[in-house]
């Protein structure tokens, strides 16, 4: 029982950055943009969050720095893919390669003299709720994890119950129709990108400011790509995306736990599972997957 409860706790912890990133990507993809810049955005945000927190001594300002990074990189993505109408995946990969390079460049520049990996004096604390109950091991989490869980209904509500969400989904499904209805397609796509960028930034910062309290080269380690997979797996719906993030976090937590227990197992199989499952989901649903119809298509008004 204890084993399961601690596993659930670890699942939430490990799932949090993925959840943030995947929620962000959900918003962006719903508007018709596939942001492959996500991986790099998370890395650079993790880095800027870390540096800002270290320089200012404030974790909150660090978090804001990471969010700002997410916004700036999303604006760059918007410039390339929305305004200039470039191929979304090449533009997104360009953003990722650029952000990765920049983060590592600056990291080396700032900390080249350091003999030990730099870390924060203080990282985000864990907050226990339900203390004294059996569920305590599950709900001893970082504040940002609770916020992430609250973001799930928020994103659902935003997309399905607000005017903003209706318009956002409309430009992702049929931008021509939205334009005819007087909606500024470009502005809405930028709005989606910015909002998504904030989520991606928090996702990156969660790793450097909460879990690790430090920055390392491999801190993101493909989590952005996982998020892309989870968005598809979750069929572009916030609650199903939560399910995907928990599935991924759970498999990862299980793998770590089994390794720690010394169980001999090719644990990579567990790690690869979410990717394989996503591809399987795509293969099974095929053309019927509820892809936003305008995904990957730059919008240009003719004439």
């Amino acid at each position, binding site marked *: 029982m204890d084993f399961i409860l601690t596993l659930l706790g670890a699942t939430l912890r490990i799932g949090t950055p993925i959840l943030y990133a995947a929620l962000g990507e959900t918003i962006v993809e719903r508007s018709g943009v596939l942001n*492959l810049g996500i991986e790099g955005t998370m890395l650079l945000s993790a880095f800027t969050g870390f540096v800002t927190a270290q320089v200012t001594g404030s974790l909150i300002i660090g978090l804001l720095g990471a969010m700002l990074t997410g916004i700036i990189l999303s604006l760059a993505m918007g410039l390339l893919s929305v305004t200039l109408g*470039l191929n979304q*995946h*090449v533009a997104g*990969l360009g953003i990722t390669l650029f952000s990765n*390079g920049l983060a590592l460049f600056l990291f*080396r520049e700032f900390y080249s003299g350091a003999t030990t990996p730099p870390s924060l004096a203080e990282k985000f604390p864990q907050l226990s709720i339900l203390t004294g109950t059996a569920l305590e091991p599950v709900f001893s989490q970082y504040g940002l994890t609770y916020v992430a869980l609250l973001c799930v209904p928020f994103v659902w509500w935003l997309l399905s119950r607000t005017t903003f969400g209706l318009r956002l989904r409309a430009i992702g499904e049929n931008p021509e129709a939205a334009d005819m209805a007087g909606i500024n397609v470009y502005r809405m796509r930028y709005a989606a990108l910015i909002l998504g960028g904030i989520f991606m930034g928090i996702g990156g910062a969660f790793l450097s400011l909460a879990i690790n309290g430090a920055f390392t080269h491999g801190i993101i380690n493909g989590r952005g790509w996982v998020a892309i997979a989870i968005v598809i797996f979750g069929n572009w719906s916030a609650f199903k995306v939560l399910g995907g993030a928990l599935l991924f976090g759970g498999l990862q937590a299980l793998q770590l736990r089994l390794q720690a227990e010394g169980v001999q197992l090719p644990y*990579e199989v567990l790690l690869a599972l979410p990717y394989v499952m996503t591809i399987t989901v795509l293969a099974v649903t095929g053309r019927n997957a509820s*892809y936003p119809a305008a995904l990957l298509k730059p919008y240009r008004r003719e004439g």
Partner: protein
Amino acid sequence: MLGLKLERAPAPLWLRALMPFIAIALTFALVSILIIFAGANPLDAVFELLINPLTKNSARGDILVMATPLLLTGASVAFAFASGYYNIGAEGQLYAGAIAAAWVGTFVQGLSPVFAIPLMLLAGFIAGALWALPSAVLKVKLGIDEVVTTLLLNSVMLFLVSALLNGPWRDPVTGWPQSPTIAESAQFPILIPRSRVHLGIIVAVIAVIALWWIFKRTRFGLELRAAGLGKDAARFMGVPVDRVMLTAALISGGVAGLAGVCEVAGIHHYLIEAISPGYGYTGIIVATLGSLTAPGVALAGLFIALINRGTLSANRELDVPVYLGDVIQAVLLLTTLAVLLLNRYRIRRVR
């Protein structure tokens, strides 16, 4: 009211010829900010990056070594993209080829290199193509977007490599995650004495020439380009678009696999997890900069290899972090894409 209007019209020829240079100049202008930030003089850095490596024999050799995987992944990506198939999976396909090389390479002890090396290349090509197969089939048969599936298969491949290296191939003595060393007959010969230039560069050059020859001289190449440039029209004219795209995707995977073979057989002689620092993704940059043509891929591959070698000099001489190279590549990609828009649009003053 006077304003500017973006119009669809091709740029004049002189401007198109200048475009690569505009992109390069723009890139270095942007990156100068980082160089200054790193405490170096941008002009010194440009010298170290672009000129110094060309003046020394050893550095020139290094450029060829570094260009080998880039030319191969660049050719791989160009193959796929030109047919309208957006293969983002060259990275995973490269590792598939590397696994095949590491596996076959241990079997060919005693076999003459004349047989061992082609056998290994063939195995790597097939492995790369096989790793490209699922996405290609899903695309052609079910219309499932290949960008996402090829990208995800990259991650799956990294886990597969890790599982192999931490499982059956783990070095029993040291415990390192490193495959057994391949047979000597399978190791690529060094072409230039006292350098690291190995047979791989020949493989890469042949691949690029093959790309050119197929695109320009064969029926398949014409059909491939037609499918990529206008799917509906190609279909109307009887081009079997799906079959062409599937073939292009498999060749693309195979060529990326060759890059993996070259890294294993030419440099490391065993498989490690860090065999590629993202050559598959850099291949996308190379192919895009080279505008999906063989001469373009050749130039772009060599240019990026030059920058990569140059960042080593700049790192040594000016203490600029080596990651400068990654930033330059990415910025160059983005500026090139932006500058290429000039090819499609023309800014005009309107009343």
